[in-house]
């Protein structure tokens, strides 16, 4: 009897381990295959287009009810705000939004617009004297001057508009929001998102603005470095060799920035650990990643509706895979820009066989 119980427990553990492994490759996406599959997470984009091929914008990822937040910052040229507060030892662990934006350091202004927008909606941490302070960490990427004057860039109004546009529905990908002006290894970058439903009901989602110095795919085959992580709904099909003659973007003007979210209840220290693990998804999908000119920054938002002891390795592993998938989906969703002298190819223009309708 006792032996049976022990054996049963062992078998159960083996079954769980197998389930966890089979969950990892590939993942089961949520209904929207988007970070908005995580309850409590909304996304809003604001995109500007100058009509000459120049694009930039802002993406706000909003946790209206507050979320435990963490961050990891491994790129060599970051532009960030309110990341110190997210360190595990600091007093405040709740963020109300994370803002991703183009515009280099100038684009940090967009977070100011999100902050006042959330304040007007009654979202924030009460401090004193009737002051409500929304906690809005932010990271930016370098896109100024691409087919546009250098001062074509997000300001506070971009954040306000992204905040007002936020909802929990499907999330537009490609040339939108913070990914509007993005490039990736010489081709068009953009916004991508993906989600995964874990067997225990935990949901993990990722959203990314890919603006990398490194590339996401083998230049001769078009095979994505992280293609082995993608699931069927990410629509990876047979590879069609095709020449890729794209000019690499300046290594000093890049940055891939991301948010991963989960409905698991995490402490701030755990949220920071999840961000570290999720960052591996960026490393698997991009070669090179975290270069000196990259501002690569990954945030975690944990909305905490699923209580109980979180399985950190399962969540962190799933977040990494979701981030890899989101990067592939960003590159596949991106559209080439061909306006006058402004020309940047998309992945799907280079490898149409890999991009079925």
């Amino acid at each position: 009897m006792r032996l049976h119980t022990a054996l049963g427990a062992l078998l159960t553990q083996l079954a769980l381990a197998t389930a966890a492994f089979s969950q990892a490759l590939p993942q089961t996406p949520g209904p929207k295959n988007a970070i908005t599959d995580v309850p409590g997470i909304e996304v809003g984009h604001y995109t500007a287009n100058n009509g000459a091929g120049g694009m930039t914008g802002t993406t706000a990822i909003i946790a209206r009810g507050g979320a435990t937040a963490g961050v990891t910052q491994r790129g060599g040229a970051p532009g960030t705000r309110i990341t110190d507060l997210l360190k595990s030892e600091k007093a405040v662990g709740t963020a109300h939004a994370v803002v991703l934006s183009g515009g280099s350091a100038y684009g940090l202004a967009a977070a100011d617009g999100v902050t006042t927008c959330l304040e007007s909606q009654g979202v924030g941490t009460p401090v004193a004297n009737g002051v409500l302070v929304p906690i809005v960490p932010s990271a930016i990427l370098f896109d100024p001057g691409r087919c546009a004057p250098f001062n074509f860039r997000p300001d506070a109004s971009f954040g306000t508009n992204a905040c007002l546009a936020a909802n929990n529905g499907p999330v537009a990908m490609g040339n939108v929001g913070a990914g509007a002006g993005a490039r990736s290894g010489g081709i068009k970058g953009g916004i991508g998102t993906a989600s995964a439903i874990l067997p225990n009901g935990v949901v993990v989602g990722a959203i990314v603005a890919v603006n990398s110095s490194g590339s996401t795919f083998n230049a001769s085959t078009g095979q994505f470095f992280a293609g082995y992580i993608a699931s069927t709904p990410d629509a990876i099909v047979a590879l069609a060799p095709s020449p890729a003659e794209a000019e690499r973007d300046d290594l000093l003007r890049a940055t891939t920035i991301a948010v991963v979210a989960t409905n698991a209840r995490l402490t701030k220290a755990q949220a920071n650990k999840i961000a570290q693990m999720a960052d591996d998804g960026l490393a698997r999908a991009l070669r090179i990643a975290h270069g000196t000119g990259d501002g690569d920054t990954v945030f975690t938002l944990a909305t905490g509706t699923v209580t109980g002891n979180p399985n950190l390795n399962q969540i962190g592993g799933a977040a990494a895979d979701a981030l890899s998938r989101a990067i592939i989906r960003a590159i596949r969703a991106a559209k080439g820009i061909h306006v006058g002298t402004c020309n940047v190819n998309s992945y799907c223009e280079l490898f149409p066989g890999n991009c079925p309708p």
Partner: protein
Amino acid sequence: MRPPRLRIVALSLLAGIAGPAGAQVPGQNNAITDVPGISVGHYTGADTGTTVVLAASTTGQGVAGGVTQRGGSPLTRETDLMRPDNMVEIMNAIVLSGGSAYGIAAASGVMRCLETNGVGFPVGGGNVVPIVPTATTFDRATCNAPPASRPDFTSGLQACLAASGGPVAEGSVGAGTGAVSGGVKGGIGTASVVLPNGIVVGALVSLNSEGTAYDGKGDLYAASLLLGNELPALTKAGGPANRVPPSLPGGALRSGTNVVVATNVQLTKSQATKIAEMADDGISRAVNPAHTAGDSDTLFVLGTARLAIDTLGDANAVVTQIGTAGANAVSRAIVHALVAAKSTSCQPSYCDTFPAACRNRP
């Protein structure tokens, strides 16, 4: 408040007659602007404000910097960039502001101001991205609830346009407008020191601490660190303990002392970071408790590169010398802030709380 000319005469006397050989003396204005390449601008609003410290090398470029961030409620911008392992080596300005997280917007105004003048990290095509690390705090002294104003883009722009060398206004100005220190009015304070080997170190603090800067009798913890007779207005308070106002109740995001320390020595980011860690002890010595969970306490260091560190001796010894002088300058600047601050309708100043301590004030 502080007639500069009289000060110069007094300091000359101090250096020439009273000062022992090799004595440390304050710079001409006893301000962070005594460091060549540093200018300061304040924007003062109804009950909050913004202070910018601009830094320029001899060629008008930015300078190396470092940061330490030990308070438990930091509201910061571009501090990741300042880590020595990250690429950008130059800082163009540091912004200190009230307005809690909203006040971070002031940095964007400073960026605009600098970009207009072509100042920033060059990114090709003649374009620049100004590097403007920032720390803000919640204004505890606002007599209005909610506050009547908060710093924004324009506040930063105005502070930058107002920046100049020379004397720096102290007390209830700029980022110190709505500041409190323990139970008395806080504010802006600045101090500098000229070392015998030509090193100049200056500090500017926005004192808005949860902890107090005075003991049970009302005497300032850091008064003993003052140089010579640099603050003749201040004497011993010596009051009974029951007259000491307590520190205000704390809480997350409620307070914080943010600081800039500058020196004329050329530093690497790593050296600047080490100096920041040492200079931060100046807060610890002047305020008790310091670096609380509710404090934003963030300290920046800038090296304006007028002196090559190799010409001054062993680099580590020089870093220690600057860090030590920086810590003392921070403590002294905190004393200056308290003595300069004026009472508001809802927050008494140190001097009005302990008039005996300030009985020599003009």
